[in-house]
């Protein structure tokens, strides 16, 4: 990927897209011109193909890279000793091998959970000090951890998902993820499958990914973390799940919990063989 910033063109297109979104009134009950958003997104995607740096998420990836190398936390040390599965400090291609079982932590972890663990164990940062505010509000940039995740994911761009499922704990995590995906709970009787098990369905105007279908999973899961135009920030997969649980009328999902990792493991497994296109772009 060549580093090829064309800020003028990028901001012109982004502005156009934002205007389209504003007109369509994503937050208003009536979406008068929904197709304008889709057209704007299509134009934007075409541009992303030609120049990945036109995605605003790449600014966060840049920030994430700087944070990775910065000496931080009580121990004033960088994240370089962090082992993402390919050995300490090995970033390129690491995301494609996640989630996986980590011997040192004694559990299966996805990228974000692993970063939180490294920040605690290497830099001495108290995870409780971060966990409550790990997801940005609308129009607020993605938090530091999410920025690092965005950078690391971008360093697997073009690779194929190949998270291992050989360790017994990895197999158990996958089973748990699948069971969670289909468990119907809460006052609305929803499971993940209620919204993500049929093709071409919408909730209001929002298209729903048919995540039980491997083809669709391959198309969508590899785009995370993604820049979300309607919220004007990068959203990570942990954040996406947090929001889906909110819609399900379930309580606040704990960042890095076994359940969240298991669901991500299930999603990535569904997308096995899919190409990583992170950071992506979502409505």
């Amino acid at each position: 990927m060549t580093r090829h910033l064309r800020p003028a063109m990028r901001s012109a297109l982004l502005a156009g897209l934002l205007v389209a979104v504003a007109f369509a009134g994503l937050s208003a009950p009536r979406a008068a011109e929904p197709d304008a958003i889709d057209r704007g997104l299509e134009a934007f995607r075409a541009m992303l193909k030609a120049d990945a740096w036109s995605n605003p998420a790449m600014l966060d990836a840049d920030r994430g890279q700087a944070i990775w190398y910065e000496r931080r936390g009580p121990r004033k040390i960088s994240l370089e000793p962090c082992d993402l599965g390919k050995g300490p400090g090995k970033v390129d291609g690491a995301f494609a091998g996640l989630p996986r079982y980590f011997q040192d932590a004694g559990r299966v972890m996805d990228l974000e959970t692993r970063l939180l663990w490294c920040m605690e164990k290497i830099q001495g940062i108290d995870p409780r000090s971060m966990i409550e505010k790990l997801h940005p509000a609308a129009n607020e940039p993605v938090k530091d951890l999410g920025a690092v995740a965005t950078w690391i994911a971008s360093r697997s761009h073009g690779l194929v998902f190949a998270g291992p499922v050989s360790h017994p704990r990895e197999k158990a995590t996958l089973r748990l993820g699948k069971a969670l995906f289909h468990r119907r709970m809460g006052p609305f009787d929803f499971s993940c499958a209620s919204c993500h098990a049929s093709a071409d369905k919408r909730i209001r105007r929002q298209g729903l990914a048919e995540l039980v279908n491997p083809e669709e999973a391959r198309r969508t899961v590899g785009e995370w973390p993604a820049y979300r135009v309607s919220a004007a920030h990068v959203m990570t997969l942990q954040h996406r799940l947090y929001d889906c649980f909110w819609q399900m009328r379930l309580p606040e999902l704990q960042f890095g919990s076994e359940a969240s990792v298991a669901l991500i493991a299930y999603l990535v497994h569904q997308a096995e063989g899919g190409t990583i296109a992170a950071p992506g772009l979502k409505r």
Partner: protein
Amino acid sequence: MRSVLILALIAQMSVASLLRAEESRGVNEQQMARVLRQAFPSAPPEWRSRLVPDATMATCVLWDNQPPKDVADAIKKREASRIRHPADGNFMGDWRRGEVLAQSGYGLRFTDNDIKRPNGGNCYACHELSPDEVSFGTLGVSLKGYGRTHKFDPQYARVVYEKIYNSQAVVTCSTMPRFGANGILSIDQIKDLVALLMDPDSPVNKSANAAPHGEAENKASPRGADAKKP
């Protein structure tokens, strides 16, 4: 006789099917309960029950939302027995209030702290209703022109009321929430929604382009939208 037996069986299954549902996927319910406790540490105690499927949902999970007919019929019977009807026998409220409820997705989310604000039905999330509202979802069937399709039959208002009150009493393992049985909406709110669908003056039936969709499209599929096997 057979159905009585099955009904008894189902009652027993409330715990058993839950255990079996998860076990069929290689996860036991104790493990699941522990994982969920840890996933939602901030859940208020009165929310804990949200993490456990009731007997009907556990059975739906067990059968991948496609239970055999015996089981489905028994579930329908039990869910039907949970329906509470309006005391005055009148099933139609005010369609104007119904439209507001159909638009509103407010309620029961962990950010919904205004206890004075009524819960919504969020029907537009899944259904097309008034043709003036173009922002509608497609998880449910189109309800445009619904009253017209059913010839404004006053008897049918009761059917619609029961569907909204407890969708599982009508279509087993449907994706549609049980609005009355699960305490999301009140009897009066459900009456207002019946009016939205069945009142000839409701925009669902009245607007110039409220011609009903084809019969076929308005027929509920025998299975919920999430019935598809993974």
